[in-house]
């Protein structure tokens, strides 16, 4: 359950960005997570909700989107995205090599954008 500490880090960044942009209200935040990063979206949503309850961020929407796993074949360099859950022994579609592919994407964990209310007054 590292979603709780991930939600804490997420909120720290959100608060910083809101201050920077002088916005009083967060409408939504978009998080992208790689398939290998073992984020359970529901657990992250629960943590996010628990940590924002009764704060200025209460009611903000958390959107998550998984980034597919992309491997590069170590034998021929072909990039491919294994279909099945058996991605450890995913054979290269071009040459059949099974072992030692490098991970091109799928380890990410980042905020893509925030949707903020315009600053009031000023």
């Amino acid at each position, binding site marked *: 359950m590292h979603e709780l500490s991930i939600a804490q880090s997420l909120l720290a960044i959100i608060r910083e960005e809101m201050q920077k942009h002088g916005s009083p209200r967060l409408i939504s935040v978009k998080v992208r997570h790689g398939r290998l990063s*073992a984020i359970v979206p529901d657990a992250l949503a629960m943590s996010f909700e628990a940590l924002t309850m009764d704060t200025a961020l209460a009611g903000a929407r958390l959107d998550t989107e998984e980034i597919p796993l992309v491997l590069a074949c170590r034998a021929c360099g072909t990039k491919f995205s294994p279909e099945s859950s058996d991605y450890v022994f995913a054979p290269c579609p071009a040459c059949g090599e099974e072992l030692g592919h490098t991970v091109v994407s799928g380890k990410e964990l980042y905020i893509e954008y925030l949707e*903020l209310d315009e600053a009031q007054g000023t």
Partner: protein
Amino acid sequence: MQIPVVRNILEANARVSDDLKTLFAQKGILALNLMSSPGAGKTTLLERTLTDLASEFSMAVIEGDLQTDNDAQRVAATGAQAVQINTEGGCHLTSAQVLAACKELSLDGLDILFIENVGNLVCPAEFDVGEDHKITLLSVTEGDDKPEKYPLMFNISSALVLNKTDLLPYVDFSLERASNFARGLNADIRIFPVSCRAREGLDAWYDWLRAARAAKKR
């Protein structure tokens, strides 16, 4: 108004981890992050290593495993410096906790710093703690498909220690299957089958430590 941010959510941890890397580089310390499920044998491997290499290296341990609260005492009994981190139920060590623990150690002249992470194969993989290498332990009682189930952990580790080989006759575990799974997403991972209990296979692990130590120049 939509604001593109594109910030790594774990950037705060990564920043302190980079500070630790700089600190360890300045002091010429080899830092190793040990990760496994609870009970795989991290503390036992440390006890063996600290004892057997005591005359070669000055070593210290940051103990983040709270499964048994006497882990720090167990490693301190070998004569090495040891600091226990209270993770307060956390499922992984953070770089800030390791930085705080470093302040309680005397780092001058230290050759190797071992960081024993919380027993967990998922969460520690996301949190760098300034280490030069991640090392994953897997015991043969756990099932040889663990690397397949936790690919990130094995993907980012430099070495895999397969412990408790003395129990191989009693369990359904194939060293070859486990090794192949581990190499599936990490062609370069070094694999060391050992029995900390029977003291078998440790020499290859020690040789790897010596080489890693030598590669980290003062």
